[in-house]
């Protein structure tokens, strides 16, 4: 039933949808020359949508008879998603100017993806979940192949589409099984049905749903598409893929696991533990041999998702809060790293992606080198950088819920991961300079990079805020 309260609860999505449609009309009539304006208007739309989050939460938590949730959890996730989406719009401007192919569709597609992602984290029903997921995915497939003239980009888009469809198929199959055996698609309904005990059909449904979701968060063993897509897609798009959709998909996974499958905790906990450890290990080991920085960051994101899942494996409010904090810190680190990657351009402004080209960066570009090193040490989880705190929180939650073994293995594997981050720092700081990058004069890129680096270095002062916010987000699910 459509009522005013429900409409107010989905206000952020309405703002984004209407904004996106209006911008699409402007772009259609004014052409690509207004792209910079549309970029900023899209960012403004995201800002307005972010501003309406409070209104939305005030009219939650349930909207449209439980199909939709506007609670602290979705608000937290959406804030992150909007920030990451805005960053990828702002960063793209210069990239596409230099690489060519700057079109007004880019910011609009990101807006539509943001609508989808907002629906994902707000889903209260399997159908909302699926619609949100597909809205995001459709926009993402186009974004991946945005550089039409670049063969790698098209290949990335195609791979993403084929494998993404496979995942959607698995997810749908799982949903249909859950629906068939519980008679409902709503999360609360499934949870009620599960409380009476779990039939084999439901177990199969659960496994398929989790597999489909694991695909979206690129967790092992459904990670194969990630390095190829990350490498092939234009860098700002990769930055987007590595941040906002990760937050959305993981937020969705958490919501499904806790709200819908909560009573079957023992069943999915084993799966999550396996997936987490496998992701940490594979992400760490496979990254060692990489020579392309974007591929390396792809494995790094697999590795990071593994750590984030440790918090979910704990299955406690503290664990979910830890995962949410992890995502916030991870988003900052990822955006920061990709801004650094965006600055790797030769004299003609063409992007360079080899790790070897970074050698001696500390002697030619001190600031960039320092920021790069900060992000790498942070991703490796070395204190006093903020990335350590992210890992600390998830392992602390695991230890608190008695999963000491998981914590010990996970943290030991993080040492393997540290190796390849160190390799980048070694290239930057210890090797002699080889490639001279074009001097970046983009104030925006430098600004975003500096802000991210400052958050990573001084982040501990944000702890009280982050703790409160993530605890509130987690409390909304239990």
């Amino acid at each position: 039933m459509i009522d005013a309260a429900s409409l107010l609860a989905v206000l952020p999505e309405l703002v984004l949808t209407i904004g996106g449609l209006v911008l699409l009309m402007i772009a259609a009539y004014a052409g690509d020359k207004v792209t910079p304006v549309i970029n900023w208007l899209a960012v403004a739309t995201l800002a307005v949508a972010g501003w309406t989050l409070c209104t939305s939460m005030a009219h939650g938590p349930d909207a449209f008879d439980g199909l939709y949730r506007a609670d602290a959890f979705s608000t937290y996730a959406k804030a992150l998603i909007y920030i990451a989406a805005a960053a990828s719009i702002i960063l793209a401007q210069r990239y596409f100017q230099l690489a060519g192919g700057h079109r007004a569709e880019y910011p609009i597609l990101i807006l539509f993806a943001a609508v989808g992602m907002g629906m994902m984290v707000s889903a209260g029903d399997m159908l909302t979940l699926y619609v949100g997921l597909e809205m995001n995915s459709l926009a993402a497939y186009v974004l991946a192949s945005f550089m039409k003239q670049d063969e790698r980009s098209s290949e990335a888009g195609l791979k993403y589409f084929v494998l993404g469809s496979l995942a959607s198929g698995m997810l749908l199959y799982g949903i249909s099984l859950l629906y068939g055996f519980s008679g409902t698609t709503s999360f609360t309904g499934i949870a009620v049905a599960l409380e009476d005990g779990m039939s084999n059909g439901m177990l199969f449904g659960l496994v398929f749903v989790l597999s489909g979701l694991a695909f979206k968060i690129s967790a092992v063993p459904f990670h194969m598409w990630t390095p190829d897509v990350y490498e092939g897609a234009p860098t700002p798009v990769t930055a987007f893929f590595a941040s906002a959709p990760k937050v959305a998909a993981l937020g969705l996974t958490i919501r499904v696991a806790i709200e819908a499958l909560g009573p079957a905790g023992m069943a999915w906990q084993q799966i999550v533990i396996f997936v987490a450890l496998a992701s940490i290990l594979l992400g760490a080991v496979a990254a060692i041999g990489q020579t392309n920085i974007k591929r390396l960051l792809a494995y790094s994101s697999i590795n990071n998702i593994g750590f984030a899942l440790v918090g979910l494996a704990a299955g406690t409010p503290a664990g979910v809060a830890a995962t949410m904090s992890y995502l916030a810190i991870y988003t900052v680190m990822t955006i920061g790293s990709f801004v650094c990657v965006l600055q790797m351009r030769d004299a003609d402004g063409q992007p360079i992606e080899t790790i070897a080209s970074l050698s001696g960066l500390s002697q030619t570009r001190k600031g960039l080198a320092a920021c790069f090193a900060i992000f790498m040490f942070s991703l490796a989880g070395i204190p006093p950088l903020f990335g350590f705190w992210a890992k600390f929180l998830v392992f602390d939650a695991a230890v608190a819920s008695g999963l000491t073994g998981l914590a010990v293995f996970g943290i030991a594997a993080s040492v393997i991961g540290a190796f390849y981050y160190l390799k980048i720092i070694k290239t930057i700081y210890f090797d002699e300079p080889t490639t001279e990058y074009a001097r970046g004069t983009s104030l925006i890129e430098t600004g975003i990079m500096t802000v991210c680096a400052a958050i990573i270095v001084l982040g501990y002062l944000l702890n009280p805020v982050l703790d409160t916010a993530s605890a509130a987000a987690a409390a909304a699910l239990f």
Partner: protein
Amino acid sequence: MDGFPILTLMMAVPMAGAIACLFTNANTARWIALLATLVDLVLGIILWINFDQSASAPQWQFQEYAPLFGRFAWALGIDGIALMLIVLTVFLMPICIGASWQAIEKRVGEYMAAFLLMEVLMIGVFTAQDIYLFYVMFEAGLIPMYLIIGIWGGADRIYASYKFFLYTLLGSVLMLIAMMWMVHEAGTTDIPTLMAYNFDPHVQTWLWLAFFASFAVKMPMWPVHTWLPDAHVQAPTAGSVILAGVLLKMGGYGFIRFSLPMFPEASAQLAWLVWGLSMVAVVYTSLVALVQNDMKKLIAYSSVAHMAIVTAGLFAFNQPGIEGAMMVMLGHGLVSGALFLCVGVIYDRLHTREITRYGGLSINMPKYAVLFLFFTMASVGLPGTSNFVGEFLALMGIYQASSWVALVATTGIILGAAYMLYLYRRVCYGDQVNADAAAMPDLSAREMLLLAPIAAAVLWMGVYPESFLAPMRADITALEARLVQAAPKGDAHVTAGKPAPAHDEHHAKVEAHGEAH
């Protein structure tokens, strides 16, 4: 001094210096670094003077508390043990900066910034009263040290920097898991509270092992010491000084602050492990030191041997053992630092650490030869120098706990004399076989200025150790009291023999004698 945040100030000064160094040219950076470290030295002396050593004084002084970080707090405070290690740190830092004055030519600003950051973190480790703050400071030290070895190190620096980083990181992460478990169990992150908390003895074993993994690597103990010779050889002189002088002490400090008071039962149970590893280390690494051709490697192995006496002394569970271990740590910090400086002096002139490339230096470098001999003797443990006091006390303590360990550990002193004197003979005595070594000029005023204060401190510690023992006495007594119920029974106590009936035989003899009549 009440309420004045002197500990925070001691960290803020080098931190500000580090940031300033990044943005200035080479020469300004040198002066900023020197100034910052000297200010910290002055603050360290003020701290020492104001430290209340009387018996009625509270154990923890200069406490600061600010719950800034949510789950953990900016909680600082020191006892006598931490005070001594802080004084050692701030004493060595200006010397390190001085040692790098000319040796470091490229990227000076970054180098000085890394050293100052190192100082912040070292002081942080010794002052942290929150277990997570301690961990952050403890681990963060890896970053500047990794950069120092990797950027300004020798030919094989990259391998050494990786090894240093990954080895120590793997050791520490397990400790972090143990810390999390302890904090959940005890419900506090406050170190003094945790030191008094009685953990379940069965769990203690696991916790102890997790902490051991970290501190044993940091110490370093045999067989996880292999990162140390590599790191030392490749690091620049000042890097080696700070590594040997302070970073290794973090391991010992960890044992004294965490392993012993928090897990007394496990410590007693597993003392055999520490003793065994220490015994092997003393003999094995001393023998390895004997056959080294590289001077820095030799001193690095001697560090491992000295640290083994520290670990054995700490796990003697008695006052002389622990006091001795602390004194060895302080003495070794000064002496090995000075020895690395001595190596640095001739390395700067000839750019080789090969022992055979030198010889007969006492002829052309008499001042150098005198100071080098002094530090060699101090390293051997000659009475009147700092190491004698420490080693004597430590071995005395060990003897009470286990005479066998004491026996083996003492051979370390004999072997130490062997390899150090052998080194000295090859470098300073004999004929001047190498013309370039014979042409080296004697110590410059700057180098004298670096070595003389250390020599004075070594003598002071050897002649009047009470200055250094007094601040620590109350804390070590408290630690011993905490350990006493768990301490293993020693095998070397004087026990009263069974009184045997002595006259019987005599009596019988007399009787026999009588019968004969």
